[in-house]
């Protein structure tokens, strides 16, 4: 019989290790957190990823640019439009072509709608992580309205592949403007409900305030971007640092807080939804006329290296293309925001109770397929 090995060291310290995941509701996907506990206190966490690694970067080396675009939807599926836009912008920069103003406006509106939809789903799931089941129904009820708008114009609800190098797959539906304006009006009355339900809730505040504090220095050091980084005062909004598409034309505030705890990461996203509605409102009535797709004979990036940064709902997405001049890239790299955001989890949850771990990982808003690619 095989001898059972007992880690003497762990026993003396009264520490034990449990695996959270790979199939666990609070990890929001297939992620395994090897968690070392002493009593109820978290000592350290080792994240194990790769359960949903599909080799998107390797696959893309054999696909043409319009083909590999469809794989980017499957990374951060809640920011599908923004991922498409990143590849489209990178290829357009490489080819030195400019899309029409109409395309830029529509791209920005779609990107902001996906940001709102993504934050709605995050809010819904975050409440549920903390035991407030009602938020899930409220969040999904309102997200459905955005998905209906997407469905009408792009033909699909979650992964659209609508923004392509050279423009858009098709023109927007004639109802698009009216439905988006109706949605803005509707959602502005619903956002205060979100605050009533969760933001002002005493139990919710006790669970989140002062929990999982991430300092600004650590946020920069670990490369934590997006709302999670801005909750710590790290000015990392690519829409402000390197504006693309129609962002130079609109006015909006970059939401930052200095505190860096779970509650302020939550507040950043709540306020960002208001900002996104403002951005859409500035653009929706002024969509100019113009061509939807550039007449490109062949989509080939000239020989060279290209990098494009965009702001997804979760942070900075980078697309790095190395081209030999052919129709497909020699190497394509996606710098995904969730990859860097994940590994800060050990730093900010060590020393907290295991129940707080769920709140902290929820506030980082991780999408696992984006980590593994």
């Amino acid at each position, binding site marked *: 019989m095989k001898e059972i090995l007992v880690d003497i060291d762990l026993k003396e310290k009264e520490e034990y290790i449990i695996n959270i995941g790979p199939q666990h509701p609070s990890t929001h996907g297939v992620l395994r957190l090897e968690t070392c506990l002493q009593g109820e206190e978290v000592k350290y966490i080792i994240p194990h990823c*790769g359960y949903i690694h599909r080799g998107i970067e*390797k696959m893309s080396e054999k696909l043409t640019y319009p083909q590999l675009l469809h794989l980017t939807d499957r990374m951060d599926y809640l920011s599908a439009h923004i991922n498409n836009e990143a590849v489209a912008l990178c290829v357009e920069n490489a080819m030195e072509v400019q899309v029409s103003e109409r395309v830029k406006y529509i791209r920005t509106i779609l990107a902001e709608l996906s940001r709102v939809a993504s934050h709605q789903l995050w809010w819904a799931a975050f409440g549920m992580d903390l035991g407030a089941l009602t938020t899930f129904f409220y969040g999904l009820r309102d997200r459905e309205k955005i998905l209906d708008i997407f469905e009408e114009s792009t033909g699909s609800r979650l992964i659209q592949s609508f923004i392509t190098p050279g423009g858009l797959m098709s023109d927007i539906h004639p109802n698009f403007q009216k439905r988006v304006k109706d949605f803005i009006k509707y959602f502005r009355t619903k956002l205060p409900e979100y605050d009533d339900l969760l933001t002002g809730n005493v139990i919710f505040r006790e669970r989140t305030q002062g929990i999982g504090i991430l300092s600004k220095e650590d946020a*920069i050091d670990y490369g934590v971007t997006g709302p999670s980084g801005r909750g710590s005062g790290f000015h990392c909004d690519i829409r402000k640092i390197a504006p693309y598409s129609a962002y130079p034309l609109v006015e909006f505030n970059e939401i930052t807080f200095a505190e860096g705890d779970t509650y302020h990461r939550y507040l950043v996203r709540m306020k960002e939804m208001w900002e996104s509605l403002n951005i859409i409102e500035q653009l929706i009535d002024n969509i100019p006329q113009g061509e939807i797709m550039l007449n490109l004979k062949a989509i080939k990036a000239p020989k060279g290296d290209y990098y494009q*940064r965009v702001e997804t709902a979760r942070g900075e997405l980078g697309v790095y293309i190395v081209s030999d001049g052919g129709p497909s890239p020699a190497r394509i790299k996606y710098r995904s925001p969730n990859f*860097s955001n994940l590994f800060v989890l050990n730093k900010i949850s060590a020393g907290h109770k295991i129940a707080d771990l769920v709140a902290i990982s929820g506030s980082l808003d991780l999408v696992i397929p984006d980590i593994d690619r």
Partner: protein
Amino acid sequence: MSREDITELVARQLPEAKPGPCKQLLEFIVDAGHIRMLADYLKQNPLTKMDYLFCLTAADRKDGLNVLYFMTSSVYHHSVLIRVILADKAHPVVPTVSDLWKAAEFYEREVFDLFGIHFENHPDLRRIFLSDDWVGFPLRKDYKDTFTLER
């Protein structure tokens, strides 16, 4: 700082650094032995303050495995790309920068996993996506497996 100013600073600090081909970002090509010195200089210098490593990756090119360091400043927002070319594809070794930027620790694990580049003095260098018993490094151009269709 403008691109010219950074170029001048780097030329004074490390005359061996060569300009690179990338047009969008200011690029320097350095030897594996010099990367830590230049990275540390760009991070510590108050004029450049490259405190945010936003990407670290590699590419398998004809001249060897290229390791690419994309860094920017959270204060000034100017960016630099540093390229290290490792001509020896059988034993590619480059010193780690994970003590300068914590983010590099996980990027380096990813590059090790997919390209087999060894990062010297890395605190925890093991595969990150693939299983520990995986054979080969998939993002290399000479990688062969049994189930990928050749076109």
